[in-house]
């Protein structure tokens, strides 16, 4: 994969946006009211996940304000925005990881295909098997590489025989592009791998349970540029079989890997559109200010 071309694409985006900055629109917060409705095209036909009017509260503090958006089948959606804007909070509510935080409360309608995620009858365990998650910091279990990948399949009884399990482990590691590097040391601890390898191991672990959606919470923020490039390549390949939502701090990364991009600002979804449109012709002044680097 030519990293140079992907990097160039990001730089072109920056350059296209820069003239706007030169015109000198001051990024005063008063001049950027939140839109009544999200600008752009947050909805798609026949979505994989459908979220409407989602509010998330931490105690009395509201972290997400009425966010509505769709995630289409087999597409990569990037969630971008300045720190503390609620991207990760929103992402974690998509497979109910927020349940582990006592004071966190989610309201609104969130659906995975026809299933209501917050239905009291919803089986959270099954939901998390269908909507997997990759975290910001690589968090392999302190077990062998093999046991890390086999963890999910064993939990859910996906393999009856050792042979089947071996196959799942190998396929998952191949899909995560890690097989060639670790096939001779499957029984060594996963924590002994490099940071980038650990993160690919975590991706392999996630896809080993065959999820339908993979949520990624800044998966490259702890990695060096080469490891990042590998993960980005991997995301492109994975989008053929999985639906992916990725939170990222890097606008270049969003531009490189995603088909659609959502821009969050202080808990509001300001704008969502095709990635190219968001980066070349942002429709809202907040989005424009962010992608041209005036804050964030």
């Amino acid at each position, binding site marked *: 994969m030519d990293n140079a071309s992907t990097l160039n694409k990001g730089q072109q985006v920056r350059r296209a946006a820069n003239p706007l900055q030169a015109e000198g629109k001051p990024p005063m917060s008063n001049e950027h009211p939140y839109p009544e409705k999200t600008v752009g095209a947050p909805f798609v036909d026949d979505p994989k996940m459908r979220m409407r009017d989602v509010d998330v509260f931490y105690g009395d503090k509201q972290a997400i304000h009425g966010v509505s958006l769709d995630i289409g089948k087999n597409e990569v959606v990037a969630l971008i925005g300045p720190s503390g804007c609620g991207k990760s909070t929103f992402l974690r509510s998509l497979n109910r990881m927020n349940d582990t935080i006592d004071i966190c409360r989610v309201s609104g309608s969130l659906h995975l295909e026809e299933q209501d995620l917050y239905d009291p009858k919803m089986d959270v365990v*099954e939901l998390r098997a269908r909507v997997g*998650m990759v975290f910001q910091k690589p968090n392999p279990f*302190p077990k062998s590489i093999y046991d890390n990948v086999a963890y999910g399949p064993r939990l859910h009884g996906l393999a009856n025989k050792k042979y089947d399990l071996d196959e799942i482990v190998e396929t998952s590691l191949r899909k995560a592009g890690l097989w060639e590097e670790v096939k001779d040391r499957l029984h060594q601890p996963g924590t002994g791998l490099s940071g980038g390898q650990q993160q690919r191991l975590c991706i392999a672990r996630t896809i080993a349970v065959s999820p339908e959606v993979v949520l990624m919470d800044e998966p490259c923020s702890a990695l060096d540029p080469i490891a990042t490039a590998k993960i980005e390549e991997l995301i492109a390949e994975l989008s053929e079989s999985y639906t992916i939502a990725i939170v990222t701090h890097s606008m270049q990364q969003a531009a490189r890997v995603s088909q659609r991009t959502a821009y969050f600002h202080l808990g509001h979804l300001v704008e969502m559109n095709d990635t190219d449109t968001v980066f070349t012709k942002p429709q809202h002044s907040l989005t424009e200010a962010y992608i041209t680097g005036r804050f964030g």
Partner: protein
Amino acid sequence: MDTGNLLLLVVVMVAVAYYMGRQRSMALARPLGGIRHLHSLPFYYAMRAALWCAIPALVVLGLWLVFDDSFIRTLVIGGLPADQLPASESARGLLLNQINNVASGALPVDSVSPAVAAAAERLGHLRQISTMALAVAVIVVGMLGAAWGWLKISPQLRARQQVERVLQVLFMLCALIAILTTVGILMSVLFESIRFFGKISPVDFLFGLKWSPQIALRADQVASEGFFGAIPLFVGTLLISAIALIVAVPVGLMSAIYLAEYAHPKLRAFAKPALEVLAGVPTVVYGFFAALTVAPFIRNLGESMGLDVASESALAAGLVMGVMIIPFVSSLADDVITAVPQSLRDGSLGLGATQSETIKKVIIPAALPGIMGGILLAASRAIGETMIVVMAAGLSANLTVNPLEAVTTVTVQIVTLLTGDQEFDSAKTLAAFALGLMLFLTTLALNVLALRIVKKYREEYE
């Protein structure tokens, strides 16, 4: 001047040295334009002067106190006329005691021979001189040190690093105290044990199946021949400890899991200290709880089921001891479980694991070294525990693994061997040291074994 006053004087001198050092460094700094032109803060110059005063003075004081007594004794003994000098070492000791008593006024002067009276006077005189000399030496050395520390103060002096080095040595000495104490205890036990093994063969001791340390203390006494087989004691110890661990490990571990993973923070803040109170109950209280409540309860329960239960049983002692050591397991396990990073929990939950699956498959393996540490601590407590066993399990050295019978443990036997008037070189008393040594070696072996196991199976997280 006595030692207490002398110490007080040293403290005053050190305080003065500190103050003077501080003043001098400030005075040096003023023409330069403030203390930032000094190499170190005034505190370090002052500290250095104070240390120069304190360390030499205290070293002189310490050495003097250590050697002063034996030096004076040698002088007094040497001053005795040759025909008064007893030949044997112990008779010489007795004579010295007599001289001492006369000098301190416990014995009237006219009740002893004139040579002894003269010696007593010499002793008193020498002591007086020594005390005076000590006071002078300490004051002079302390003042010289302080003066040196004060004179050397200059803006270039690296007082900060020097104080640092002194502190380093101080810390090292403190660490050394703990280690040396352990070595000292081990040595004293070891030497007495060697004397014991001179009387009783190690094979009889280590592999003997009968424990009955009743031997004739005097030649004319009628007594049974002693048996010093330690096996029944070790079996009793292991039996009671095993019962205690069977109670404490599951209960402690599961309560730790509950507190760390499930309990609401408010409940945890209350429940954890409450559990730790268990460790603060004196063991003698546990002892009568075991003897008066648990043991009769077990006996009645056993009888109602048609079992023959002794009124003092290993089971009663083990159960109560198990309750006592629950906090050792639960408190340490709780700490290490809480220390497992949240990211590992998230990873497991994110793959669709339930909370208990996460605990079983990820958290416990990651926390295993700490949990083993807690269990080990609990086990050493159980092995070393005496009071509960004395009161609840009895003194009879039965070789049995039946928890319903009375047994005894190594520690209990050590207590019974050493209480009362005993001749200190009889096999009976010396046996206590041999038992102590064995106990020490057993716990050491357990420690090493557990460390090995932990090293092999630990799952290291970053």
